[in-house]
């Protein structure tokens, strides 16, 4: 058997997490460097996966398969298609930036040693033994490991386990490491943070439990958990599901993914979680973890239940449209920078889900590209916003003004992040958004037109945010604000370069994704609508 590359890609950060967590309390910096190195090594492995992957080859490549829980037909099965490779690449790419951006986020703050505001009342009595820095980076690596294996798993049960297990480190990341910039007292912030963390956990747990029921139901119906086997059996007719069974199972899966994604009206955990978490963790949530939800819709919902997916399409499209418009409108109404980005993300997830369920090649390619591009663009915007917030110590938009004058580079990167969010042509998100819109329009013109309204609203919230924070007279509180430091520039510059690069030349990505999308299209047995006129091409 050849080298288990996929296992290694997932296992490396997992091992890294354990080692990082074990670094002695005093060696905080060593832990940071260790985490960074591990994440970079993971990136190298992910690149290897990317290189070894042949877009035009088999549907699932680099497969691994071992018996695991033989009694229940659970196998340790890994394999990637183009979409998975792209998202693994995105994850491995973003984690080093997240680690670098959060370099100082988990340093014990001077106040926390005196009167620790986190960890509950016991900690004031206990001597300061907790190692937040090690924990923070270890948790990030743990999330990375779980996300990567979720993208790789082709066994439904294996996927489910890591899909759910992800919640544990995320819960601690949200609840344990809050944004230091908050309005009000420490106690207030602590209460809000735990509220956000619990809300995150409850929403996702409920989704996960419903999915568990569906997973078990799937086993009862199909007799095993293997994605490939079930899909194959369904395709050649050996596995016949009753219509209602299929629909119920589909709904069970979809609900969990819709919570994770998040789709209106299951979205309210996201603004809380993103608002209260530190900026890098917020990026981790929206750019990495939530992608598992949309990815799983594409792989599991469409792959396992094509008929039910088609059955549910109208409702899902309406919900996606509501997400797009509603998220954008709410973003306009936010007073908190991070919550604004969160609502913008909800709008963008609406686009992704729209692209997946319009079931056209353009829509699904666009949705996949959107996942990658949204990850990069939100990371850029959110991380710069995090740098901004850490300087002023406030998340409220009204507390800023005229930053452009004192910190032009920060303002410039913020603007580019914002422009990416509003899908300016030339930047990567445009490609994906336009593909989704075209894909939607080709099959459901009205849906496409309504979704297009979203791009105006996107401009509105982005520009209002930029105007209120960056332009105008310099507020006294921001007048001494330093511009981006080298570490921060190292974080932002590559992201922006990627945004521009993928905006101008997205071909490598589309070529990676296209064959996978073709497979998905054949799963659901849908053909693209043909143009009315066969123009000479």
């Amino acid at each position, binding site marked *: 058997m050849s080298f288990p590359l996929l296992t290694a890609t997932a296992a490396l950060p997992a091992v890294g997490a354990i080692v990082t967590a074990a670094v002695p309390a005093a060696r905080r910096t060593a832990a940071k460097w260790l985490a960074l190195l591990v994440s970079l090594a993971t990136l190298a492995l992910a690149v290897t996966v990317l290189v070894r992957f042949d877009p035009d080859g088999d549907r699932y490549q680099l497969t691994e398969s071992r018996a695991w829980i033989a009694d229940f037909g659970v196998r340790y099965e890994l394999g990637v298609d183009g979409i998975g490779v792209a998202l693994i690449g995105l994850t491995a790419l973003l984690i080093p930036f997240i680690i670098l951006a959060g370099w100082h986020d988990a340093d014990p703050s001077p106040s926390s040693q005196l009167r620790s505001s986190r960890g509950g009342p016991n900690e004031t009595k206990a001597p300061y033994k907790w190692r937040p820095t090690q924990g923070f980076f270890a948790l990030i690596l743990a999330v990375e490991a779980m996300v990567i294996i979720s993208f790789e798993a082709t066994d439904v049960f294996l996927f489910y386990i890591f899909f759910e297990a992800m919640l544990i480190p995320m819960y601690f990341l949200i609840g344990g490491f809050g944004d230091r910039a908050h309005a009000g007292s420490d106690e207030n912030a602590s209460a809000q943070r735990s509220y956000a963390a619990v809300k995150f956990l409850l929403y996702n747990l409920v989704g996960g439990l419903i999915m568990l029921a569906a997973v078990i139901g799937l086993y009862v119906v199909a007799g095993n958990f293997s994605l490939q086997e079930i899909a194959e059996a369904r395709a050649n007719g050996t596995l016949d599901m009753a219509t209602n069974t299929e629909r119920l199972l589909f709904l069970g899966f979809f609900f969990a993914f819709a919570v994770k994604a998040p789709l*209106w*009206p299951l979205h309210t955990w996201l603004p809380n979680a993103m608002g209260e978490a530190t900026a890098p963790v917020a990026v981790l949530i929206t750019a990495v973890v939530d992608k598992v939800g949309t990815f799983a819709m594409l792989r599991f919902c469409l792959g396992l239940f094509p008929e039910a997916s088609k059955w549910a399409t109208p409702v899902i499209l309406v919900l996606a449209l509501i997400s797009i418009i*509603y998220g954008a*409108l*709410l973003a*306009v*109404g*936010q007073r908190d920078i991070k919550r604004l980005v969160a609502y913008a993300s909800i709008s963008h997830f609406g686009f992704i889900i729209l692209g997946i369920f319009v079931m056209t*090649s*353009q829509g699904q*390619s666009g949705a996949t590209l959107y996942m990658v591009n949204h990850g990069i663009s939100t990371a850029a915007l959110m991380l710069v916003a995090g740098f901004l917030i850490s300087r002023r110590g406030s998340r409220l938009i009204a507390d800023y003004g*005229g930053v*452009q*004058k004192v910190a*032009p580079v920060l303002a*410039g990167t913020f603007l580019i992040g914002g*422009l990416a969010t509003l899908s*300016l*042509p*030339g930047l990567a998100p445009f*490609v994906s958004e*336009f*593909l989704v*819109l*075209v894909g939607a*329009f*080709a099959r459901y*013109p009205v849906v*496409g037109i309504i979704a*297009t*309204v979203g*791009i*105006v609203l996107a*401009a*509105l919230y982005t*520009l209002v945010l930029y*105007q209120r924070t*960056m*332009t*105008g*007279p*310099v507020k006294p509180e921001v007048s001494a604000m330093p511009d981006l430091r080298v570490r921060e520039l190292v974080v932002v510059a590559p992201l922006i370069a990627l945004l521009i690069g993928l905006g*101008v*030349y*997205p*071909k490598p990505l*589309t*070529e990676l994704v*296209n064959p996978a*999308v*073709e497979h998905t299209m054949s799963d659901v047995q849908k053909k*693209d*609508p*043909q*143009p*009315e*006129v066969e*123009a*000479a*091409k």
Partner: protein
Amino acid sequence: MENLIALLVAAPLLGAAVLLCGGRALDRAGHWLGTLLAAASFVIAVVLFTDMLGKGAEERTLSQHLFSWIPVEGFQADVAFQLDQLSMTFVLLISGVGTLIHVYSIGYMEHDERRRRFFGYLNLFLAAMLLLVLADNYLLLYVGWEGVGLASYLLIGFWQHKPSAATAAKKAFLVNRVGDVGLSIAIMLMFTTFGTFAFGPVLEATGQTSEGKLTAIGLMLLLAACGKSAQVPLQSWLGDAMEGPTPVSALIHAATMVTAGVYLIVRSGAIFNGAPDAQLVVTIVGAVTLLFGAIVGCAKDDIKKALAGSTMSQIGYMILAAGLGPIGYVFAIMHLVTHGFFKAGLFLGAGSVMHGMNDEVDMRKYGGLRKYMPVTFVTFGLGYLAIIGFPGLSGFFSKDKIIEAAFAKGGTEGWLLGSVALLGAAITAYYMTRVMIMTFFGDKRWQPDADGHAPHPHESPKSMTIPMIVLAFGSVFAGGFFSIGDRFMHWLEPVTRHDHGNSPLSAATVTGATMVVLVIGVALAYVQYGRRPVPVTAPRGSLLTRAARRDLLQDDFNHVVLVRGGEHLTRSLVYVDHSLVDGVVNGTAASMGGLSGRLRKLQNGYARSYAVSMFGGAAVLIAATLLMRAV
């Protein structure tokens, strides 16, 4: 030769990248670099132009395929350029006027500490605009289209410390985005109808689809054009855009951005030709805007805003002409080019005046400046004569032709449109004369400003006057050069086609009528402003004047309906999200909590209470058993 096309775009793009990413080190040489690259672009354009002239009329189209941009199943978007006569005209205008404005900016922005960045933005604008006119498909055009929007956003909001500038920039971008929705829907429609959105295949296949589809595409394109070219109802951003530095106004208004809409319509001529209803709407929009802009221009005391109104009106002429179909395409473009010269000249002149007057923009505080700024006066004056259509100057030829073409449309529409165009010419003469008189003639009305600095009107430096002079040349001679022997028409005909139409009025009649209204307009303005002293504070004015000062209340409408309504909508949605969507979930949680709290009270810890429940439960069980037995 065709490999040079990419360089046209690449040169200013490189400049933008270097200037914006480069550090302070470039502060001293940055503006030269920017100007040089703009000039390089112009030189390349000229080279390509001469090459093009050397070919036969039908072989002049060049194309360059760079790379495949978005290859997705059934969806091919390429980065490819197409340079034909229409594009060439624009490229020359954009890079030429653009270069002049760069030169002008060297002087105008001399004291601005962020000059390097300004030049970066100018270069970016140039690159985007060139991309727009060079693209060989609608999607790439869309990139340029939005790129222009971005650059104008950056330029209008260049003085970001002024909240009004930042707001104006945002407004411009947003209104343009509304138009962009039209363009993207048009592209989607093309994609679903034709399976492609490259110019060639789409424009060739227009005959194969229904008129309804074409009308839909046409109307969507018109929406896009309205946004970018500041046509009613999306014109509101243009007046506010005057918050930007004056070269920006010149660049946006004269040569480039606002003419993009005209380009789009003329480029998509085949689509509009197949959709007469869409064409009718285009002409109506053009005619309405023509009057709208002119009326607004009459009332404004801010010199730049008056010129902005005039721009709106002139673009209205072009849109009107473009809406006339093959009769008008050529004249739309011709007016566009001549307008590019004289309006750029006028704006640069206005900038020069402001430069000498401590950035004062209120014309009521000018007066008698002709003695202090002779060069500005002369160039501005030539621009003035050109725009009102003084015989022999550029505007005369181009505008006259449009009025003629409007009549040639035929039928009631023709008469109506022609009359509106004539009326517009009269108002143009009126408001331009007003601007001229208030600025350069009459008494000195300037006063020390709040800080006690009395303005010392003076002529601007060479770097500013030379571009004005060059543009003045263009204003004077371009029209004649183009019209003699119908040169321009023959040049563009292979692309746009041309149709003479059958005008109910002879060319001479139209010219005569134009002259008459011209004289009336000038005379009215003279009577009102030349004979009497101009009051420094604006009189209250008639209802129309007051409405026109407020952009005919369109902004107020927007404010009340869109801004205020939007604010209420978002605020109520935030509330809904918090209390309804979140509330349902939290309510479930809270009711669970409440229920468990109530249930918890049952667990009061008294053994006897538990005993009661046990006995009660036992009783119920026995009862159930008995009942089941009984049944």
